[in-house]
């Protein structure tokens, strides 16, 4: 049975704060950075007003923000933080430490470009730099999905068979500071969806003198990393399950949780992208169809774990992919394109791939630009 919702107008950051509030983390440890700031401001307010029974650690840096969450996660309590851009880079070693250390932390990343030059606007360069850090990365397309994904993230991360931190990603300003309608379930229903974190994946205490993160030889080290790889694999199924459960409980789904298809099942051209560009691409698909062109869209929602099977299955049926990246691996190409080409090659799929870099440094990417890019790609087909 689908629960009741209230229609509310809120920014994407507010949606993230609401989700965190409803999930009842016990420790929030955070440091301000634009455009993430309003998420943690709201949470500090909730704690001070007694709406959220949690310890709020006002740390002196992002490095410590995540470290505080790590201490809490090691102690077996639910924990939350959020960051952006340079802040994410500043916490870098702890990002890897918590991923490889299997700590179930939920940390929305409000995507913002990296300096220099100074810019506070959105691209995906920040979180893309951490694709190898052992975090689950889910890229959202709108405010509603931010709320839903943050709730889901707790479930995914805190699953004992997974035990990985999660990074729900939302585009700076376009989502974070833009007010849109969100169907907000009650705090109680939201918490029921997430559930108590009663069986922690890890828990330090004096009764159990475990050593966490100590010396290991290559054998144990490789075993741990192999398990991390397998946990990522298990996370795929969990994300699909969470998507179904979200549908049953809240009446919404996002594709199959890993990828989301828009338009026809087969088309001459498939636009592939993530985040808000993917949302905008839906309008482009409609426009192109009006003009009699055959175009569909695949939004990659989950970037880590990378949904190889789903992408390959869809790409196989289609003729050409136009991959739009909002970030670059300098010296190579856009990360999404690189990875899609890799899985197609590995699976011997000969669907051709063309890449475009768009929207860096907060450049606006309206559907008209996507339409133009798609038309070019259609012309250069074969």
């Amino acid at each position: 049975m689908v629960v009741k919702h209230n229609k509310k107008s809120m920014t994407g950051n507010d949606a993230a704060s609401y989700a965190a509030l409803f999930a009842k983390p016990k420790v929030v440890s955070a440091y301000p950075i634009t455009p993430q700031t309003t998420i943690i401001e709201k949470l500090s307010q909730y704690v001070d007003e007694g709406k959220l029974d949690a310890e709020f650690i006002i740390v002196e840096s992002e490095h410590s923000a995540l470290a505080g969450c790590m201490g809490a996660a090691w102690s077996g309590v639910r924990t939350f933080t959020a960051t952006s851009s340079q802040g994410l880079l500043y916490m870098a070693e702890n990002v890897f430490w918590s991923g490889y250390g299997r700590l179930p932390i939920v940390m929305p990343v409000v995507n913002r470009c990296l300096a220099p030059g100074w810019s506070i606007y959105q691209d995906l360069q920040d979180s893309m730099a951490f694709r190898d850090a052992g975090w689950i990365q889910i890229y959202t397309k709108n405010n509603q999905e931010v709320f839903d994904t943050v709730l889901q993230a707790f479930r995914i991360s805190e699953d004992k068979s997974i035990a990985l931190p999660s990074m729900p990603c939302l585009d700076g300003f376009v989502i974070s500071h833009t007010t849109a309608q969100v169907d907000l379930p009650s705090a109680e229903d939201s918490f029921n969806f997430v559930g108590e974190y009663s069986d922690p994946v890890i828990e330090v205490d004096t009764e159990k003198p475990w050593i966490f993160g100590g010396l290991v030889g290559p054998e144990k080290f490789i075993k741990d990393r192999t398990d991390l790889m397998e946990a990522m694999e298990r996370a795929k199924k969990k994300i699909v399950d969470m998507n179904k459960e979200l549908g049953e409980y809240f009446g919404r789904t996002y594709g199959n949780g890993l990828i989301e298809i828009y338009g026809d099942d087969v088309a001459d051209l498939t636009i592939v992208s993530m985040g808000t560009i993917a949302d905008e691409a839906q309008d482009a698909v409609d426009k192109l169809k009006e003009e009699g062109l055959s175009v569909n869209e695949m939004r990659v929602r989950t970037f880590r774990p990378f949904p190889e099977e789903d992408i390959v299955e869809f790409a196989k049926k289609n003729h050409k992919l136009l991959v739009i990246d909002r970030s670059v691996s300098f010296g190579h190409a856009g990360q999404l394109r690189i990875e899609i080409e890799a899985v197609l090659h590995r699976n011997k799929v000969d669907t051709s791939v063309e890449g475009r870099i768009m929207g860096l440094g907060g450049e606006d990417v309206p559907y008209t630009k996507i339409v133009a890019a798609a038309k070019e790609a259609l012309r250069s087909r074969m």
Partner: protein
Amino acid sequence: MKVTQKDLLNIPKKALLKGHFACAGCGSTLAFRHAIGAISDKVILVVPASCASVYQGGGKGAAFNVPTINTAFAASDAVASGVRRAMKMKGLDDRKIVVWGGDGSGADIGIATEIGACDRQEDILHIIYSNNVYGNTGGQRSGDTMIGAKTATTPYGNTTPRKMVPFIMMANNARYVATASSGYLEDLVYKVKKAVSMTGFKLIQIDAPCPPNWRSDSADTVKIAQLAVKTGVWPLFEWDRETNIVEISRPSKKYEDMNNRVNLTEWTKLQGRLKTITEDQLKSLKDDTERQWNFIRKFM
């Protein structure tokens, strides 16, 4: 709350078991055995990258017999803060959260994190065992290296004074600050027990001789630590925020008076790192020692 030699044996359980990986004559493990042993039933350790991340051993043969979280170099005080807050939420306020790390993290890379935790009045105890160098990376200069000491990155002797972390923490409103020594274990244990009985951020800095990096005989560890006190180069004191008074600890009392101090060369001659100390450097080291005494005298 005097601690006697007999009290050193009367501990809840051994904190350090057989098979640790420390070097022979390690001043840090000696201090660990007693300092952590004294509170071993309630302690949760947070260990930044340090010699302690190595000498704790690994796997089933690990020598630390207390729960231990290993963290990145600069992360320990923030991790400890997270543990403390989580314990509070779980109603486990009696747990003693202790950061055990060297001077590389405590005086250098982790100092912003440390001051941050102090600033927030986190209820944790940070113990710096100071071997005056980056120990397990092969003995490079740290912010806590003595003037004149040869290190891997100051091959002709360090020229700058020590960064006095205890004073920094006093200035940042810590609850309790003390110095201690591997050569005076009763005094060390007394201070550790006192510190964990208080709520707020506490710092104890221990002089921990390091035979491989100090080029000293492993049999001389205690002797060298005691001489550091007797020459005045390592004043033992404690400071309590509530009284804002520095109290010179018993082993150091006599040596506040310069006339009672053992000649500094008695201490330097036992250490290869200080064998080549020049007259100028020796004078600078003496000046720096006096600078420290003058600082703490202001609170006496």
